[in-house]
Each structure stands twice: as C-alpha cells, then as structure tokens.
C-alpha cells in the first residue's frame, strides 16, 4: 500500500488527511473538525515535530521528495490546528463571526 509520509513517520499515517497543499484548505479542514479531532492530530504530530524538521532539513525546498512534501504539508496543517488546541478551545477564532480572511496567493510547496 502506498504511504503518504516517509517510512520513519508511519505513525502519522492516520492523519494523512491533514497533508493538504494550501493554507486555505487547511483552514477549512480546521473549521470542519471537532475539538477531539484537532486535539488527536496535535497530540500525534506535535511530539514528532523535531524529528520531522530534522528529516526535512536534509533537502532544499526545490528538491523535496513527494513523501517529504506531504510531511511538510502536514506540519503546515499543525500550525493552523495549533490555535484551537493551544489557545481557543474551539475551531473558530472567537468573536470572528462575520469576518473572513482568505489566502489569494501563497507559495507552493
């Protein structure tokens, strides 16, 4: 079975649906997740972040292998998911009801 992430990060496979290429889609994923789901993702990915960065640092940005690219996407997702877990205790930014703030341009990974 093809895997999403490098072999050393097989433990993150259950969270392969967080390997999302754009911030806009990562933010949408956060808003459509429950706090339990966000907490589970954070609890699995956060402790592996040092390992992941050490692994990813072997490559320059323009020669990331596909599985490494997925791993970086996942950690970009962790940045987005960290706010509900560490700060808000809810997926949305509190008191942000009517406002939107959408990425219209972002560098591809």
């Amino acid at each position: 079975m093809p895997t999403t992430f490098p072999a050393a990060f097989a433990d993150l496979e259950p969270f392969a649906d967080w390997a999302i290429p754009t911030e806009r889609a990562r933010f949408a994923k956060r808003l459509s997740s429950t706090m339990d789901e966000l907490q589970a993702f954070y609890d699995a990915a956060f402790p592996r972040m040092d390992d992941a960065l050490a692994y990813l640092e072997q490559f320059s940005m323009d020669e990331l292998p596909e599985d490494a690219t997925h791993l970086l996407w996942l950690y970009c997702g962790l940045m987005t998911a960290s706010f509900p877990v560490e700060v808000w205790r809810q997926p949305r930014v509190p008191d942000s009801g009517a406002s939107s703030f959408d990425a219209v341009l972002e560098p591809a990974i």
Partner: protein
Amino acid sequence: MPLFPKPAEGSWTEHYPDLGTGPVSYEDSISPDVYERERDAIFSRTWLNVGRVEQLRRVGSYFTKEIDAARTSIVVVRSSADEVRAFFNICRHRGNKLVWSDYPGEETSGVCRQFTCKYHGWRYNLEGECTFVQQEEEFFDLDKQDYGLAPVQTDVWEGFIFVNLDPTNTTPLREYLGTFAKGLEGYPFHQLTQVHRYRADVGSNWKLFIDAFTEFYHAPVLHAKQSVADQSQKLTTMGYEALAYEIDGPHGMVSTWTGTGVPPKDMRHVKPIEQKARSGLFGPWDAPDIGLDELPPALNPAGHKAWGLDSFLFFPNFMLLIWKPNWVITYHYWPTSYNTHIFEGTCYFAPPKNARERLAQELAVVTFKEYALQDGNTLEATQSMLESRTPVKAFPLNDQEILLRHLHKTAQRYVREHEQQDSRTPAAV
C-alpha cells in the same frame, strides 16, 4: 510614568499642535456623501501603491487593478522598453473594459505580447499604441495614432509601483512620499520574494481598519488570549506604549517593541508551537541574511534596543510594516462604498532555504491571520454602532491613538482643499 520617553510637550499628540486633543467625530466614516467627496479629493488624485515590480517579471507581464474608489480599472504592464507603465483599462473604440477574464469586475494577471479587446478585436501594443483596428476602412478619417490607450502616471519607489489617476498631477512620487520613504531607501525589499497574500471583504469604512492597525492600544485587550496566560495578564496590566510616533505631511508612523523579545527572553512567555517552530507574530526568530548591515535611518527612530516593528502609513491607503527579523507586511485598504472595503494583507519573506524556515514563515503568516480575523469582526461592530447615530457624537482619542487623529484630519483636509480649489476654478462649459 511612561515606559518610554515622550516629547518635551508631554505627549506625542501635543508635539503636533495642529492635531488638537479634544474628542473627535466619526461622521466622516458613516456618511455616503463624505465618501463620494473622498473619492474625488483623495483616491482620484493621490499616489496609490498598486503592486510590486516582482509581479511584472518580464516584458509583457501585466496585472489589472480595480480601483473602485476612483471609479476605474487600470492595467499595469512591463513594456517593450522594459519600463513599468499603466493605462486606464478601457478600449478606445467604444469603451469596453480591455483586459479581464471571465468576470469583468475581477482582477487578472498574465503575460502577453499585446492587448486585444474581446469586443471588436482592436489591438494595442505594450506601449499602449493602437496597432490594429478591425475593418479599419469602415471608419471615417480614423488615424490609429490618435487612439492609443490613455496613460496613467506611474512611478516606482524601491520596487513598489505607484499610480496617480489625476492627469494634471504635478507632484512627483518621491516628493509625495516624503521623508519616511527617503529614510527607507536601500532596505532590501527586492530580497523578500516569498509572498503570501490575504484578502478580506470588510464591512467598515476604510479609515476604521487603518485606525485599528495604526494603534496597538487595543492589542493587549482584543488579542489577550493569543498570548500565554501569564504574559497576557502582564501585557494587559502594563497597557501599551509605543517607542515613537512620527508624522510627515499626510503620512504617519509608529515604532514599537516586541513584548516578549525576538527570540523571546523567557520561553514561558510563548506558546508551545512557537517554541517548536521558532516563530510567531513578530516573525521567524532566526532572521535570514538579506544583506542589511545597518537599519536605514527611518527605522527604529528611537534607537531602542527592544525595537521590533515599524508601521508606516503612506496616505491614503498603503501601510508598510517592517519587522525586526527581516520581513515585511503591506496592508492596502480599497474602499468599495462608505461602509465597505477590500483589505489586502501581504507578507514578504526571504525565500526559505529549507522546510524549517518555510514552517517558521507559515506560523508567522497564520498567526497574522488569527489576529486579523479578530480585528476584522471588531470593525463591523464599530461601523454598525457609529451608523446607528446614537446620541454619542464624539469620541476621545488617547495619545497612543495619535495616528487616528492625524488620518481623519488629513482625509478631511484633502476634501476641504480639493473643494476650495474646485470652487476657484471656473467650470468648463
């Protein structure tokens, strides 16, 4: 006792006596009539930043800019002579919008060898000259030379492209931008080519969002929860004081410190994800080398060692934020009515060399987004209550809100002076 020294007059505001210190009216932010007058007096005749030269990488690169506040659309292009030029985005034949794709109201960009009107196929080269008229022989004494695109005054400062929509404007860009721009020259903006741009439709007058971003008095309160609890409490108790404020003609700037330090002096003051990614609101903690040996003179005017950020407002709607760890944000506020505008926030970083740097940038960008979402909603709440015209008519502004006082006064002055000038000029019949 202030945390940081203030001018001899005792306050930043009184250092600029024209500003006054009394409560201010916000009638200028809730009136369709005032907005219509601002469109004529401000957006149709001041220098406006519409982009950067990196958006026009080669001959034929172009982008369009919708400037609803000036009731127009322009196309900006790198010409055959390798110059940045701009034209009103209108076909000379019968007024069709020349460059657009799918939806005429949406901005577009690309690369082309010439512009061709979708309607009747008239063509214009990159210098704006009309080069082809469909069935030219059907016209009466038509000379293509007379039907070039209408040019827009364009100039470039440190890679930022500005236009002035008033054909009679005689103020050169650098003179308009004044001492702040002069004092920023040499900053390596061109090194910061990694770009993240955000856009929001905001339900408030354009000046209200500038207000929100030119004072940090709100930060320890509105954004309290974004800091870890101890730090948040400390910041709220201390309140906010800037290192310095300066005003130059219609423009203003605020110089501020970082709160926690970059990198933070005490890791207990920052969230776990920030410690892991070595990044946060003030940007990646490990500043990239962008060839900046010393700060240009306009930055950190107080010369304070805790300096973290300078925010410049170039009137009317362009803000430039230069952060200590060698990155930049720009804000643009494009009015679409008296109580709505489009906000654009763009983050510029040095290209990341590896995933660690990319991730640090990502955290800075998404942190910016979390703050902006809080700011955006507050604005609609303010706009709606100002519009309710409750008996409350005037609002006190404190010394940390000096730039708000200056912005509203400046906008009102532009309208007044433009209308005085208009009434002196005999109307053309």
